[in-house]
């Protein structure tokens, strides 16, 4: 099959969990990578080595371990900056996850003064395909500031409806926040085109890249984003670490988020001054070993190459779409052209509820996600309450897709769908 990673067997050996036998003796078929990705040995080893040999708090401990720990933590920032093409390492802020990154932006915008201030009459634009973490923070912001929340609708084939682009993004628009790749529909959105329009009217552009950074070569500058969020655990890194990248000019204008240690320049009892970026937004002891693990993760992906990983995802996705099309009663939600979408494929199987599908697949060792995937409005748009989602990654094989398709056939027969 064209496009597959050339040394797929070798890559799979990097991920020890893929060898796992489940309770019933089944070989694991992990098709839930959009939920969280599995971790290569190098990430696990890097984190263990740090904890075993270098553990100390960062940026304050005046001893050898403190210096080593600080160096490793800041080296992780360099690695992430290089991975996403950030013009400056200081523009990379470590957070807990993408949700915290987006909430950091929405909250500090609520407190912002000057050009970025948001008030009555202003508008924030999102889309109907957002994850809840890119909906609720903007609802909170607009409710608190008396501003208006608007959104792009979706077309029947799961694309953003851009027919009213110029009307929706207008002189009142202060922020446009959208996902790059949909976690439910798989749609890849034209971020650059939308960013161009947003910048014409002076709005800032926030991009939820949680599903994009794992799958696409990402250059933050070329994307058109002013601020961009993603999470570590979907890029073969650990949980508990996320990233907010922002243009220096925007980050400098935003007020601090959390107050505390590390984010200050000096503190007096009556007033404090703040550190510059990135530390301004990193109050308190950060997730140190998680950041270091993320550094190892993006290094690993970088060695394989994001172009090659993207090609692999497209090949697997095309193969999966083909296979799913053979299952009677199955409808894919979202674009059907693998070149136009990411590797998360949500579908419905007529006559069986997604939880029942997931249960039967689980009995065969196949891990998928069932539910609303934290995208209830996108499900409502397509008139469904929930769906089943398979999502592949760089370690997914065509054989695993075959197992899924067979599992779905079995599900149909188990529930006597003829």
């Amino acid at each position: 099959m064209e496009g597959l990673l050339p040394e797929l067997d070798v890559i799979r050996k990097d991920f020890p969990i893929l060898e796992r036998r489940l309770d019933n003796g089944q070989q694991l078929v992990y098709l839930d990578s959009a939920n969280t990705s599995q971790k290569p040995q190098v990430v696990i080893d890097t984190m263990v080595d740090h904890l075993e040999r270098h553990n100390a708090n960062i940026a304050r401990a005046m001893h050898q371990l403190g210096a080593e720990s600080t160096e490793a933590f800041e080296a992780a920032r360099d690695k992430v900056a290089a991975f996403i093409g950030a013009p400056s390492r200081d523009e990379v802020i470590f957070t807990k996850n993408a949700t915290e990154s987006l909430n950091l932006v929405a909250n500090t915008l609520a407190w912002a003064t000057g050009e970025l201030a948001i008030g009555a009459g202003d508008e924030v634009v999102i889309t109907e395909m957002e994850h809840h973490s890119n909906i609720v923070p903007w609802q909170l912001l607009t409710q608190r500031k008396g501003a208006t929340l608007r959104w792009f609708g979706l077309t029947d084939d799961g694309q953003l409806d851009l027919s009213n682009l110029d009307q929706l993004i207008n002189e009142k628009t202060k922020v446009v926040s959208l996902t790059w790749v949909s976690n439910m529909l798989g749609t890849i959105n034209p971020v650059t085109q939308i960013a161009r329009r947003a910048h014409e009217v002076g709005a800032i552009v926030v991009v939820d890249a949680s599903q994009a950074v794992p799958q696409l070569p990402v250059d933050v500058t070329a994307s058109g984003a002013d601020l961009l969020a993603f999470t570590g655990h979907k890029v073969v890194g650990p949980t508990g670490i996320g990233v907010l990248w922002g243009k220096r000019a925007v980050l400098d204008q935003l007020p601090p988020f959390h107050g505390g240690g590390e984010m200050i320049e000096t503190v007096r009892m009556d007033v404090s001054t703040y550190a510059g970026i990135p530390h301004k937004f990193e109050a308190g002891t950060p997730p140190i070993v998680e950041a270091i693990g993320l550094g190892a993760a993006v290094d690993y992906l970088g060695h394989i190459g994001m172009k090659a990983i993207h090609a692999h995802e497209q090949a697997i996705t095309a193969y999966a779409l083909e296979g799913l099309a053979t299952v009677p009663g199955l409808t894919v939600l979202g674009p059907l052209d693998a070149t136009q979408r990411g590797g998360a494929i949500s579908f419905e199987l007529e006559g069986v509820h997604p939880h029942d599908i997931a249960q039967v697949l689980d009995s065969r060792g196949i891990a998928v996600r069932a539910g609303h995937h934290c995208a209830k409005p996108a499900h409502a748009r397509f008139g469904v309450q929930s769906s089943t989602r398979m999502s592949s990654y760089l370690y997914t094989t065509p054989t695993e897709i075959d197992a899924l398709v067979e599992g779905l056939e079995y599900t149909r027969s188990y529930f006597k769908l003829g």
Partner: protein
Amino acid sequence: MSTELDSLYQDIILDHAKRRLNAGLREPFEAEVHHVNPTCGDEVTLRLHLEGDVVRDISYDNQGCSISTASASVMTELLVGKTVAETQPIHDAFLEMMRGKGQVEPDEDVLEDAIAFAGAAKLTARIKCALLSWMAFQDALVRAQEDSDA
């Protein structure tokens, strides 16, 4: 593999999931509640009609997996026609079974068809599916009784 599935998807459950006894929203009713399972999005709107001390009707509109729809169906079959006092030991026994991590031996004399959910009780992810309509019923009962006290 399929014995494991079969202990979850017992015929009683698959049968009730298809038949959905007492489904649909009807009048009259003294209380209407809407319950959701936020993790999976399953939902139920449930109406309770009491006549004096007797549960005369439980009507509902729900969306969910076979476990949650079958559970609503079994529950209405068990509880409709009983006095409020009679429903409580059944409700308690069902909760005890579902929260018992598969360790509680259910009493078929009390739970009748509902013992079929003992398999679901072993699966943490499915317990809430089975409990959704039962929690909605209990909530509706409290509200109906509050209103009649007021």
